[in-house]
């Protein structure tokens, strides 16, 4: 049996799945100060009467880190950065204590200016005096040469008592130094709180005699063993929308293109599944004001929900962005989209006479009948969603491309399905689908699609391999490892084989070796380096990935 639990902003949802069928669900309100208790209450409800040994897998998705960061409850972090030549480092929007030190590494990982160790030392003393116990060190191009970051770490460790240091190249191997510095700082900030949470979860689950492996869901729709996840705390943010999207992937036919519409109380989350693959944002996620390197689904949040405030503005209907709810028909004080949908019989929750009253009031402001007002509200809501959905497809089409083939092959695609999950979807999704010429789907168990998505998501993994044969070395960005390449003839075939070996090793270390075979080559490029009209070496970039997907227990089972 599989268990999926999503601790969301409003409710905590759990499902129990047996042989590809959802056999039990539970839903409890989320109490932000007691997330663990919510999680366990939801868990206990679905495992009641189930022999613990029958449970094969538990996957959790939690807003813990999202909340901690949003509420500023993470540990304070001091940054030591080595920006080298380029932008004025004062222009980086990094908050809090930032110490800038001299030294530089270039794009090929060559030291172009020695690290000023005295300056690092002085920075560390200042950081110690100001009482920081978490430090992030990041060097521009530190992912191509780790020496300066390692040296900065050593100095910080030797100077600041009881300090924990995170290094940039371990947080991400992708280009973009400000994002890497921010991601490293967030990682350092969230580490302790997350570890505490993970340990408590592990203990509570063990206390229930559940010996099945426990996973945590990441923003890219992949799972990570709970034990390894403590090394990657910030990757667990925004797992809620990822859970819903994975749920839709699980509940719709394979290989299709769908829009995921998750309509909640005050917001609607939109995500895309293109030919059966959830769309990953080409840049990392934005966390509050920070741009990061965290891989996440491209999710668009729209300020429109069942409880949004509805009013007349200049003779037209305006919806949101603030919340008025609960709906008038459910005992609230102001008209909402839910009231409009109730009056038009698009949904059946709430008191229809109250909905009529709410729409009458709105109709007076608009100079029309209650029924017409309700229609206008629904039309306006559908219009908003259509605009955002088309914007998302357009943004995907307009993503910059750097190769001729990428420009030539990108075609215009439109969704086959509009899939509604979450409470408020029932009324609007069929209308949105109709307008887009797509099939409207409200899957069975739509209100717990997020928990289903968590339960059946498989691990994801990325490995970015780069070799510079002229300089005779390779780096694996995500591991922070470097190695020598002695073979002068090292080419694309060798690079791809090596990347494959490395991702299998890495899967082993992450505790997900059984999925290593799913790894696919997502990019492989060779640049011949020509110096003085002859080839002096090659730069080889190879990316391998286990992309987001569903575990075989689901796809091979009773999926519709």
């Amino acid at each position, binding site marked *: 049996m599989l268990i999926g639990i999503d601790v969301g902003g409003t409710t905590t949802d759990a499902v129990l799945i047996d042989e590809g069928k959802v056999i039990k669900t539970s839903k409890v309100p989320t109490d932000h100060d007691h997330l663990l208790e919510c999680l366990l209450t939801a868990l206990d409800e679905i495992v009641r009467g189930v022999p613990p040994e029958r449970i094969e897998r538990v996957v959790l998705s939690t807003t813990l880190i999202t909340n901690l960061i949003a509420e500023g409850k993470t540990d304070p972090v001091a940054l030591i950065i080595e920006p080298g030549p380029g932008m004025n480092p004062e222009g980086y929007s990094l908050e809090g204590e930032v110490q800038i030190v001299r030294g530089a590494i270039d794009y090929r990982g060559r030291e172009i200016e020695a690290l000023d160790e005295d300056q690092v030392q002085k920075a560390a003393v200042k950081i110690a005096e100001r009482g920081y116990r978490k430090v992030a060190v990041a060097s521009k191009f530190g992912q191509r040469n780790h020496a300066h970051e390692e040296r900065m770490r050593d100095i910080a460790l030797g100077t600041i008592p009881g300090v924990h240091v995170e290094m940039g190249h371990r947080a991400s191997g992708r280009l973009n130094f400000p994002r890497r510095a921010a991601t490293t700082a967030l990682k350092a900030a969230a580490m302790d709180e997350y570890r505490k949470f993970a340990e408590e979860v592990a203990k509570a689950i063990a206390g229930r005699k559940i010996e099945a492996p426990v996973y945590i869901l990441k923003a890219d729709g992949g799972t990570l063993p709970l034990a390894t996840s403590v090394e990657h705390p910030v990757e667990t943010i925004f797992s809620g929308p990822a859970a819903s999207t994975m749920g839709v992937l699980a509940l719709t036919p394979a290989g299709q293109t769908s829009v995921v519409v998750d309509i909640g109380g005050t917001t609607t989350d939109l995500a895309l599944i293109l030919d059966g693959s959830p769309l990953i944002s080409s840049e990392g996620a934005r966390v509050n004001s920070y741009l990061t390197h965290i891989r996440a689904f491209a999710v668009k949040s729209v300020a429109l929900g069942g409880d949004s405030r509805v009013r007349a503005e200049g003779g037209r209907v305006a919806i949101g962005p603030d919340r008025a709810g609960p709906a008038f028909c459910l005992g609230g004080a102001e008209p909402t989209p839910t009231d409009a949908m109730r009056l038009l019989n698009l949904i059946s929750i709430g008191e229809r006479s109250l909905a009529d009253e709410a729409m009458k009031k709105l109709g007076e402001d608009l100079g029309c009948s209650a029924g017409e007002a309700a229609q206008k509200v629904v039309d306006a809501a559908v219009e908003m969603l259509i605009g955002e959905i088309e914007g998302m497809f357009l943004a995907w089409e307009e993503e910059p*491309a*750097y190769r001729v083939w990428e420009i030539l092959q990108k075609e215009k695609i439109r969704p086959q399905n509009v899939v509604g999950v979450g409470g408020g979807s029932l009324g609007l999704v069929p209308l949105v689908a109709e307008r887009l010429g797509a099939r409207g789907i409200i899957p069975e168990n739509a209100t717990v699609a997020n928990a289903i998505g968590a339960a059946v998501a498989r691990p994801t993994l990325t490995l970015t391999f780069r070799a510079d044969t002229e300089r005779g070395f390779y780096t694996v960005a995500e591991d922070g490892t470097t190695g020598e390449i002695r073979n002068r003839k090292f080419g694309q075939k060798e690079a791809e084989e090596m990347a494959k070996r490395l991702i299998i090793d890495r899967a082993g270390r992450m505790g997900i070796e059984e999925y290593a075979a799913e790894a696919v080559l997502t990019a492989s490029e060779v640049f011949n380096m020509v110096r003085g009209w002859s080839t002096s070496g090659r730069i080889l970039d190879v990316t391998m990935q286990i992309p987001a997907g569903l575990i075989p227990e689901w796809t091979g089972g009773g999926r519709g």
Partner: protein
Amino acid sequence: MKSPRELNGGARKMGLIFFPAFDWAITPTHPEREERLLYTRDQIFEEGLMDLPEVEEYKPRLAEHKDIARVHFCIPSVEALVTEAHLIAAGSTLVLADAYMKGEINNAFALVRPPGHHSMRVAHGNRGFCNVNNEAIMVEYIRRKYGIRRVAIIDTDVHHGDGTQEIFYHDPDVLFISFHQDGRTLYPGSGFVDEQGGPKAIGRTINIPLPPETPDEGIHYVLEELVLPILEEFRPQLVVNSAGQDNHYTDPLANMRFSAQGYARLNEMLAPDIAVLEGGYAIESALPYVNCGIILAMAGLDYSNVREPDYHPGRFSMSRSMEANITGTVEYLQGVWDAREELTAKAVERAGPFFRRHKNIFYDTDGIRERQTESVKMCPDRSCPGYMTIDTDAVRGYGQSESGFGVFVPLFACKSCREEAREEYEAHKTDSRYNYIFFQEKNRDEYRLYSTRMHNERVY
């Protein structure tokens, strides 16, 4: 008429297209190969420049064949001469042109390859790494679509922008200024002070040959003393920087001493509306830093921390004789600019009913030798630039010869010139001395190619 920049007062972003064409090369070891912008990619992405609120990244598109035919007589055809990479580089400039003209952005940089400024109106193949002229395609697209008339193109590549010069040589509304390493010491061996524009456009082409090893100081002097004052008087509605990066002190194909700081400052001073990358082959030691500097400068950000690892201020200075050489050139050209009206009147008088010149053009990349006779009608209507015909004959390799006859009608040509030009085109369709007959009618945005062998006509 207000310039788009004045109308764009509200926009604060710079528009950027980065198209490194990582899957396109002239040949595997050619300077114009996949690797050229690799380290530039690393540097500007690592800087996070695309995340800045001051920078808006756009996606390239393919230019249409008609956009190419608006500028070039491509032999044997547009389709045969350009690859998709060329269409994307040219198309990128059009995307930025539209964004700029619509007021979405304050200025723009097309950081794209392959380059184009050595491509002339007649294009038989690749010369100086260029097949089609990106700037000319963009300028003609903008003039056609948005009704702009006066444009200034400043060519800051180390090589003379001979293609762009040739395309606009007779156009009094396009000011073309090129500074470059003296043509006696570098490809393409042209761009001397006496190349000043056609009879009706004297002073609208200005060439500033600079001595080898000219540093930042020299180029900034030229800008301040000559280029900027001329621009102020000319009052262009659009300023384009044909932005080569091979004046750099480490460039392997040239001998100048320009730095990344110098390039950033140049773009700050010149404040082009749209910059388009041209050459620059110091792919590791210059391009990552130069491009970073240009982007920051155009975005209005502090570029003072951009520097090459081996650079320090004051590393290069000018000798007395170099200074005298440059001031002499600047003074002479100021004189030409000031006297442009009288010089134009004299040149028109001297030319008679038709102005004719003969040209020998060498395509270094493709090994083509071309002979041209250009003939411009000296229309009595002073405001009409007259129509032009070009007689071309090119020998590729050992003996295979292609010939063509092109008729070009500029946008502001008078009615009688337009009619006469069309008759010329029709008459030459039966002229078996030529393989191809071309017709460019800017006013009607009509472009034709007639094959005398196949007896068919293609209309773009």
